[in-house]
């Protein structure tokens, strides 16, 4: 059978590999969801409510309907039946906004779709949408930023099912806090943040009888297929979803949003393909965002800094009808050793669109709070922030009582401190200077869950010497095409440039969502098994084909390496390329299927599987002009074996840049009067630009985690964003003396 040969320099695994889809992308040949055009295709533009709370009294579409090129103005009266969807068994039927579009006349958030203009051109549809007149019965919206948990039962509904509001508990956290010699009690706030992938959400819907095809910008084509099948009462196999390329999504495209069934409903009624591209402004209204969080953290410690008690009580805001929980306690219960702990949450209903997962959901705002609290405790005790973390390093995952599969956080700290030059830090605020600027140095730890979703794949070996690997997962832009090519090259011995990778289609073997940083880890067993099965078939063909060099042998006397079948006794040098074997057998191809099982959601795991890391940050502060800049970042990541260091580094660097935005710039502002996300464009929603990006050093420890998969590779898409904001705010404090506990850090906080 196949062997995994990993001789240095020959294996594609662990080698920096440029994206195999790079040429398609830079030449414009890669087709994103809105790049598909079909004969007779119509364009749809939604009309969003301009109130955030109230009722639609009247929709006057008379003028819009008479405009040239306009096919129809849809609204509640004429859209037809769009049903609700429910969670299915397993990881299915997930949706953050359950209410189908136009279900009732109530407006619960600004921008909620209330009508849809469909026309022959985008311009006509946009003009018609603008011409629809709507009158409302308007009430004052609640978009208050002061979050107090609503009165909810102990077990609440969330997007993923019921959840206990006490997320984790051990010992007597309150009692231990009360008697702790050293205490810290602070509240940390993170604002609403909006996903702004460059590629807008887009749907093109095409009906053929009772089958629906959707070209969608989706991070989870199979979940979308299931939800849409429910909404239109179709068998799942009658819905096909295609997402060939994603201009990223950052979590915003994980679950279906209301524009998608609208496009499908319009296409069904009009009997034509309908394309709907969500505008940038609507991206701030109707397709999710990271919710605002308010987190009270109480730490009790001994005089030496050893944690005695940790309490985290957090609230996130959510939409009126929906149940999103920002899981800020995700990492709290295992990251450090503490005998008494309680993590609990609540939610506060607001007149806002439903929040959703955004890169590193839960842990990113959560670690901002807990890592900041730890930094403050270190300062209070005059202990080095690295030292307080070393002191509280756990031996096992104390929340589950099981060992970590692979945890090297202490080594992350030592490597990071050494690369950064942390030993030169002087603790006093404002004590470090360079070129007339005050320096601030800060650090924080980070972690992100590692697990596998179920995954299936197929591998074909073809008579022209090429291979094809197919999996219905998506490439969110991070390099999934390349990883699948690397895995297939590794197992089938076919060079990268002779491998066709096919992704993003529900007609392919079921692949995982592009979420949770879990695609790479999940597809490894599936692709390897598929390749092994293809090779096994090939060996059978080798011994059964008349005239084959191996005709008289048994399959177990043969082996496969470097794309060649050979008799073990003769060695690979006398092997025959698989293309020749297939040719002799008059076969075009041989196919193997493979599956990998889930580890995510395992109720009785033997190991706690997590990735770890840390950030060391330098800021410069020029008080004379209140100018704060991040000037240097060193990030160390322990994410198992890195399959493609080039793409991996790119992931972590991108996350650090996003973290600079989170710490210093990004926030969605809801107008207090009408509830509109008022800074709903790329000029007023400030995020980091190239000029804000400092030198970023990324180091991978590269310890394989064999509990995750055969190669020991965990995912790295999200961990780089965890903890970075706490490191930056610590550096800001070190430079300025100002402790900012509500993100982003603004100039007005510092002058």
């Amino acid at each position, binding site marked *: 059978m196949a062997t995994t040969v990993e001789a240095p320099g020959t294996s594609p695994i662990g080698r920096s590999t440029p994206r195999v889809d790079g040429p398609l992308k830079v030449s414009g040949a890669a087709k994103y969801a809105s790049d598909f055009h079909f004969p007779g295709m119509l364009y749809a533009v939604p009309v969003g409510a301009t109130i955030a709370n109230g009722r639609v009294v009247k929709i006057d579409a008379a003028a819009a309907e008479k405009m*040239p090129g306009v096919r129809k103005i849809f609204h509640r009266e004429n859209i037809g039946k769009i049903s609700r969807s429910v969670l299915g068994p397993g990881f299915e039927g997930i949706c953050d906004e359950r209410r189908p579009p136009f279900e009732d006349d109530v407006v619960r958030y600004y921008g909620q779709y209330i009508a849809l203009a469909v026309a022959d051109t985008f311009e006509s549809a946009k003009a018609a949408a603008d011409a629809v007149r709507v009158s409302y019965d308007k009430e004052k919206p609640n978009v208050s930023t002061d979050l107090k948990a609503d009165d909810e039962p102990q077990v609440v509904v969330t997007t993923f099912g019921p959840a206990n509001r006490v997320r984790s508990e051990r010992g007597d956290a309150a009692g231990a806090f009360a008697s702790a010699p050293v205490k810290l009690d602070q509240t940390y706030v993170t604002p609403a943040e909006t996903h702004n992938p460059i590629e807008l959400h887009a749907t093109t819907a095409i009906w053929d009888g009772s089958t629906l095809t959707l070209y969608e910008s989706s991070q989870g084509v199979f979940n979308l297929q299931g939800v849409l099948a429910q909404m239109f009462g179709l068998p799942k196999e009658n819905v096909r979803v295609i997402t060939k390329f994603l201009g990223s999504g950052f979590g915003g495209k994980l679950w279906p949003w209301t524009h998608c069934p609208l496009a499908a409903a319009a296409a069904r009624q009009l009997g034509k393909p309908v394309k709907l591209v969500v505008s940038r402004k609507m991206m701030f209204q109707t397709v999710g965002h990271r919710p605002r969080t308010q987190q009270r953290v109480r730490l009790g410690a001994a005089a030496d800094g050893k944690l005695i008690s940790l309490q985290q009580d957090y609230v996130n805001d959510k939409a009126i009808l929906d149940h999103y929980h920002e899981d800020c306690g995700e990492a709290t219960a295992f990251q450090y050793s503490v005998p008494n702990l309680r993590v609990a949450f609540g939610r506060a209903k607001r007149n806002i669109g439903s929040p959703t997962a955004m890169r590193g959901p839960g842990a990113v705002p959560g670690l901002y709070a807990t890592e900041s609290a730890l930094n403050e405790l270190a300062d209070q005790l005059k202990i080095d922030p690295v030292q307080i973390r070393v002191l509280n390093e756990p031996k096992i995952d104390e929340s589950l009582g099981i060992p970590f599969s692979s945890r090297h956080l202490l080594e992350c700290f030592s490597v990071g401190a050494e690369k950064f030059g942390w030993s030169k830090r002087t603790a006093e605020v404002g004590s470090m200077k360079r070129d007339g600027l005050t320096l601030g140095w800060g650090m924080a730890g980070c972690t992100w869950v590692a697990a596998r979703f179920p995954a299936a794949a197929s591998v074909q070996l073809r008579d022209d010497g090429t291979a094809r690997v197919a999996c219905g997962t998506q490439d969110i832009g991070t390099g999934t095409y390349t990883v699948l090519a690397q895995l297939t090259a590794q197992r089938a011995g076919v060079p990268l440039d002779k491998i066709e990778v096919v992704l993003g289609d529900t007609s392919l073997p079921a692949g995982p969502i592009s979420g949770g940083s879990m695609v790479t880890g999940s597809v490894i067993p599936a692709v390897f098994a598929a390749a092994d099965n293809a090779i096994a078939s090939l060996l059978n063909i080798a011994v059964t084909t008349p005239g084959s060099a191996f005709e008289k042998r048994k399959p177990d006397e043969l082996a496969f390496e470097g794309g060649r079948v050979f008799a073990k006794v003769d060695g690979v040098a006398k092997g025959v390329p698989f293309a020749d074997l297939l040719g002799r057998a008059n076969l075009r191809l041989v196919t193997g299927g493979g599956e990998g099982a889930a580890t995510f959601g395992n109720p009785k795991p033997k190991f706690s599987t997590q990735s770890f890391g840390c950030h060391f940050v330098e800021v410069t502060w020029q008080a004379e002009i209140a100018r704060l800049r991040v000037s240097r970042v060193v990030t160390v990541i322990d994410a198992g074996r890195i399959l493609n260091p080039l793409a991996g580094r790119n992931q972590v660097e991108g996350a650090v840049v996003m973290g600079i935005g989170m710490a210093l710039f990004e926030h969605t502002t809801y107008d207090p009067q009408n509830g509109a996300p008022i800074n709903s464009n790329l000029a*007023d929603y400030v995020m980091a630009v190239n000029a804000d990006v400092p030198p970023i050093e990324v180091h991978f420890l590269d310890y394989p985690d064999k509990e995750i998969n055969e190669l020991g590779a965990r995912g790295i898409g999200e961990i780089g964003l965890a903890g970075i904001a706490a490191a930056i705010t610590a550096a800001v404090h070190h430079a300025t003396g100002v402790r900012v506990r509500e993100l982003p850090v603004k100039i007005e906080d510092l002058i």
Partner: protein
Amino acid sequence: MHTFEFGRPADAAAAIATAARAKTAQQGADVRFVAGGTTLVDLMKLNVETPGRLIDINRLPLDKIEATADGGLKIGATVRNSDLANNAVVQRDYSVLSQAILAGASAQLRNMATTAGNLLQRTRCMYFRDTAMACNKREPGSGCPAITGANRMLAVLGTSEQCIATNPSDMCVAMAALEATIHVQGAKGSRAIAFGEFHLLPGSTPERETVLEPGDLITHVTLPAPLAGSKQVYLKLRDRASYEFALASAAVVLTMKGETVTGARVALGGVGTKPWRSHEAETALVGQAADAATFRKAAEAALRDAKPQSENGFKIELAKRCLAYALKTAATA
């Protein structure tokens, strides 16, 4: 669909005759000149501007930068911002203008945006740019939700109860400090407008932003002869390092004898409802020692009449620091 006519006039006279048929030269005018389009086309996409007719002036011969007889500089209306910023004479004699332009927008926008267009740049107030919102500038009398809403970016100088919208231009701040003159051809002939008289305070008519009348075509801007030995600095402060409008900016042109300030022209950006020339700061500087105390006094004088809103009070202190630091930088250059 909102349709409009698009025409290219043969000469300036034809352009003016067409534009003069409009009722106003301000917001909502039915006839608009278009050059780079970086403001106007943007606002048309947002339905904030809905002209029935666009007069393309790009082919009129208004794209030259030339020396004037009195030793100054004549800058054509359609000179691109990037060409102006990178002009050798501008860089040498009017460097504050070059610095200001390069501190704004992006290279792509500067390649399109023109001198006259930049003079007429509209505010970035988020309520102005969204037709679903009330706005006294866009729809006189409809109200100002910014005063009770998101006003962090908005003005602290020259505001009224009707409007607190900031003038967003960087170029204009430098031109105010350089005492530029704006030359206009109109239905009634040509006239020259001192820079400080070109933009209007919002008062009770925030829809009127400049003194232009229907048909008025900006043909060029002149700069007076450079002040010998002047030191010029433009400093722009904002949240991120690039590609953002100013929270506060300062343009300073200083002349000095030894350690004493002999001449000063100061203007502020990002804080005023128009490009904000500060004669108060200039008075506080001239004849004084070029030191930190003087600069701070000048900054205090410049912001004396500032009026904070709910979110932008920090801009007063920020603008003071900005101006004081710009002065210090110029004095020690």
